[in-house]
């Protein structure tokens, strides 16, 4: 029986952005009829601003594949290509109010279609998008894709890798390889997390990285809650910020500052402390 959210059902029964754009600026095609689902994404892109002005899809697949396609097109319309590429399969699933675990591969397919379309627009060959060796013959899944999906979705089990990529869901012949990849990824992760040999950054590099981290990692989160952040100054290892919008007076401000600090420590430098102006 289907355990779909009302949102999935609604977007399956009443999909949005169905069709193909005439003379599209970008086309992304992923999946195949053999595997049971496929998505063709066409985009209209403003060449000046690199903004996606229109997005349409055609999808062969089950209800969650069709709903994921609507979610994808709704999420990327009006965004610049870079902004759009920041969307993850989790955003697609979240847009739908969640997907059954074993249907997560539908959200991954949506993300891949976007990647393929952007690669197509930028004149890269689609094969450059997904390098690596085929691990799962049944569904044509590469080790690169498996690795990426494992990391992005913090997957720990073969079953989940199958849920998210389909790999392993056919003859099962590739399951030992998937197990190996899982071990590798998490072993690497552990090393990274514990020793993390960081290059010493020059002051300029550090400032740039702090700015980038705030832009890419922190601001979107705050904006989602109607808040905002401004970087005031960087003094040695002190990062001085000011919070805007609902964040300011909010009881959570303290927590927010702690979280920002944690992110910056993790991504830039252990020594950083965050202060509010």
């Amino acid at each position: 029986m289907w355990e779909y959210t009302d949102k999935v059902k609604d977007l399956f029964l009443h999909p949005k952005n169905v069709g193909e754009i005439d003379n599209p600026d970008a086309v992304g095609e992923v999946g195949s009829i053999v595997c049971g689902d496929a998505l063709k994404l066409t985009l209209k892109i403003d060449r000046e601003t690199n903004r996606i002005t229109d997005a349409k899809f055609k999808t062969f697949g089950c209800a969650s594949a069709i709903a994921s396609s609507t979610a994808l097109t709704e999420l990327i319309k009006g965004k610049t290509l870079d902004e759009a590429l920041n969307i993850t399969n989790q955003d697609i699933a979240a847009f739908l109010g969640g997907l059954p675990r074993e249907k997560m591969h539908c959200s991954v397919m949506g993300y891949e279609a976007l990647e393929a379309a952007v690669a197509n627009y930028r004149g890269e060959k689609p094969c450059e998008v997904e390098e690596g060796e085929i691990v799962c013959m049944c569904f044509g899944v590469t080790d690169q894709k498996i690795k990426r999906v494992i990391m992005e979705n913090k997957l720990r089990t073969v079953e989940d890798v199958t849920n998210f990529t389909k790999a392993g869901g056919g003859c099962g012949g590739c399951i030992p390889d998937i197990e190996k990849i899982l071990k590798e990824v998490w072993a690497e992760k552990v090393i990274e997390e514990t020793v993390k040999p960081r290059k010493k950054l020059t002051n300029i590099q550090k400032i740039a990285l702090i700015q980038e981290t705030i832009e890419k990692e922190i601001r979107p989160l705050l904006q989602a809650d109607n808040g905002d952040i401004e970087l005031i100054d960087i003094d040695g290892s002190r990062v001085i910020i000011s919070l805007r919008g609902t964040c300011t007076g909010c009881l959570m401000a303290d927590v927010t500052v702690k979280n920002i600090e944690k992110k910056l420590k993790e991504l830039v430098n252990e020594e950083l402390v965050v202060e509010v102006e």
Partner: protein
Amino acid sequence: MKVVYLDNNATTKVADEVREAMLPYLSELYGNPSSMHTFGGQVHRNIEIAREQVAALINAEPEEIIFTSCGTESDNTALMSALLSRHDKKHIITTRVEHPAVLNFCKTTAREGYRVTFLPVDKGGRLNLEELRAALTDDTAVVSIMYANNESGVIFPIHDIADIVKSKGVPFHIDAVQATGKIPIDVKKLPCDMMSISGHKMHAAKGVAALYIKRGARFTPYIIGGHQEHGRRAGTENVASIVGFGVASDLAKKHLQTEGTRIQDLKDKLEQGLFNTCPDPRINGDMVNRLPNTTNISFEYVEGEAILLKLNEFNICASSGSACTSGSLEPSHVLRSMGVPFTAIHGSVRFSLSRYTTEEEIDFVLEKMPPIIKELRELSPYGTDLACH
């Protein structure tokens, strides 16, 4: 909204007569049939009546029937018994399109050192009897082949198969779960050693099935315990369901005689109607030797789960062999074995009718189905030139 139930190969509605017959055993007649007192003993008598009724449906003798809990148990019991009774033989023959109850049992034994021959089928879902003949060896412990396929509805030439198997003196088990009640079966004319049949596929309740064991055939019980079923299947009887199964068998037998071709005609109407309104559907399976109630149709370039969910909006129940509905990521093993092309395999829909199916229901499906296929084809990146009229 009224439910239009066209998924009768999955399970069926409990017939009113069956339910009525069962009710006393769920209230005042709760005695244990093994008890010495009259209160329990009278229950036992009714189990024996049910045994006669079930036996009559396939023209067996009552003592050749044991009751089990489900079709899977009957299948497992039959195979296990055959292997235990001939433990020096290490070869099993079955087909690629069996129900998982047989298929996975055989795969398990294969891991334990048995050699298993999975006979292939052709495009029409048919077996090549020469391959069966060639596969039989002195080491063959048992042959297990279904009477009719649950997904495609294809009926195997079971009499010819039985003749070939018995000519080599090998025990033969038939999984007749989908065939019983739908077509006449006569074990007196069919040389098999065991046959599995199930209650809930023929308007009895869930939780009851039977295994026919030919008189004189070697048998080793699977469930060990008390002396129930003459020591051939231990465990306190599911009295209410067994009594209901008896009534259901009686009803099925009557309907087989009186109903004529009504279900077949409705199915033909459904098929014909879909062919007239949707371009390029394809019937999966032999057009001639098919169960009268089953049709398996593929609509190319659309996906089965999507079709089912759209049908579900109108309370129409059917099933599909697509990957998304198979519970795994691979489409139906039956359709794959038949070499149904991938463009069609994911878009397969099975409608299975019953004697309760009405013409209005078929008309309703014929009204709803074409726009559904049309909508989904418009969504699909493939086969854009196809659309329903």
